[in-house]
């Protein structure tokens, strides 16, 4: 049993950093990293709550999120490499073949 407030605060801050990174950065690699930060913020929240309640579900959920994050990173990086080979850049503002 521990007070989860501090951990939830940490989770909120991490999530905020992740969202800010996704919104503000143009480099696709950094955007993917920011998404990972968001997912890890979620992990912190789940584990803190699960530990507070003495419920293992929170930790299990964190494992699942890690797995999905790995799969998402693998696919994201593969697509990133494909983009880099075609355009020699990973700046997402340069992706302009498709537009309104």
């Amino acid at each position, binding site marked *: 049993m521990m007070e989860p407030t501090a951990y*939830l605060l940490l989770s909120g801050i991490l*999530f905020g950093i992740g969202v800010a990174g996704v919104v503000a950065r143009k480099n696709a690699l950094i955007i993917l990293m920011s998404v990972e930060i968001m997912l890890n913020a979620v992990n912190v929240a789940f584990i803190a709550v699960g530990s507070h309640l003495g419920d293992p579900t929170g930790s299990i*959920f964190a494992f699942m999120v890690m797995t999905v994050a790995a799969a*998402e990173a693998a696919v*994201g990086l593969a*697509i990133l490499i494909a983009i880099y080979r075609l355009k020699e850049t990973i700046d997402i503002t340069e992706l302009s073949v498709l537009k309104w």
Partner: protein
Amino acid sequence: MPLGNFASLIHFLPELAVTATILLLVVVHVAGKNRQSAAPALLSLAGVGAALLLAALQPASAGRSLFEGMVALDGFAIFFKALTALATIVVIFMSMDSGELAGRSQAEYYIFLLSVLLGMFLLTASTDIVMLYLSLELVSIPSYLLAGYLKGRESSTEAAMKYVVYGATASGVMIYGFSLLYGLTGTTQIGEIGRALATGDAPLPVLLAAVMVTVGFGFKIAAVPFHMWSPDVYEGAPTPITAFLSVGPKAAGFAVLVRFFYTVFASPDVAAGVWKISSRVDWTLLFGVLSAVTMSVGNLVAVNQTNVKRLLAYSSIAHAGYMLMGFVLLTPAGLQAILFYLVVYLFMNLGAFYVVILVANGTRSENISDYSGLGSRAPFAAVSLAIFLFALTGIPPFSGFIGKVYLFAEVINRGVYWLAVVAALNSVVSLYYYARIVKVMFLEDPKDSTELPVPLFPRSVLCFLAIPTLLLGVYWEPVARVAANSVKLLAF
């Protein structure tokens, strides 16, 4: 009482059939010499066909909770399993005909396609947020790969990149919402969460969680303002995948949206036969506005499009807006209208995309101006496309009209007149751009008057899609009854 893991397997046959097919496809890919052979396509057809059959044979009446409460087996889930499997079968036919995919590795393509199908099966049945998140990602991640399957073509790779960035962000926000719900209630079962929230008194975190979850689901159904990815992805992806994404994951997104919100943020009011909002957050108004905005943006932006795929992308955003009307009403009749509309929408939308593939195979173009004189160049395809487009508009006697009648009737019945007025105005706008394509096809002179041959096989598939589109416009009662029977949610 939820069944244990081994006892559940017997009720899990459609999913097992799809999983076995995926593993077989991996074996075929590893062992096979010829990467372009038709064997993977035929194997997938057999596997998905078996899954469809097994899903249809599942008893709809008795609701069951499987795998210790992870997934539900109820009429609602079975309906969506059959719907998504049917869409996948049509998409496999489309992929076999598509010129874009010729010369690409076949087995990998079908592995991804069937993985999405498996994800949709699980997504529509999930009753636990862990399962819900995993299956949502199982739908999303292979979709990213499919959107970028034309590696080396700039638009396709770019579409995949945008899809990954938007998709990963949306699901990240959604799961943070889940963590709030878990923190508030201490459980991951959506039924339990709903019961805990009904007695709680913290509107602010609940509202925050509801909004964050809406981001994830709204992304899947491409509702404005979470639609930004869809026009780009629909235009860049291979056309069979565009068709697939606009029907399959969208239907699954609606299924999970309904199951989640009707269980977590509403509870059945048995006496009145409707649902009522259980927490203090009035989310139906939020979704009402979302619905109106979605259909308006979809239709108004579609008017100016010159690329057929992009036009159909905006039209599919608009259709998501129409279907959301049924979602905000909290009545079984509203849900029945959504399910019926999804069936109709499957045939007409896949049909329209199929003609786009056939024309692109002949002309290598997806511009509306290149459809000029299609009525004389390929009369069969042109007439079919006209049928599908008029059905999408919702003109009698086509099936889209009946779908809209069900939706409008229930909206007016519940007294949400402003939404009905917005939807009616939108239908008028949509007539303009759908009719524009028909006009180009039949009234304008062709730039190139050579005949576009449509072989026998695509003709028969087109018939398979066009006949229900016409038939459901005059004799819709059986499908409507199935839809009504399927609106049986499991309230765990």
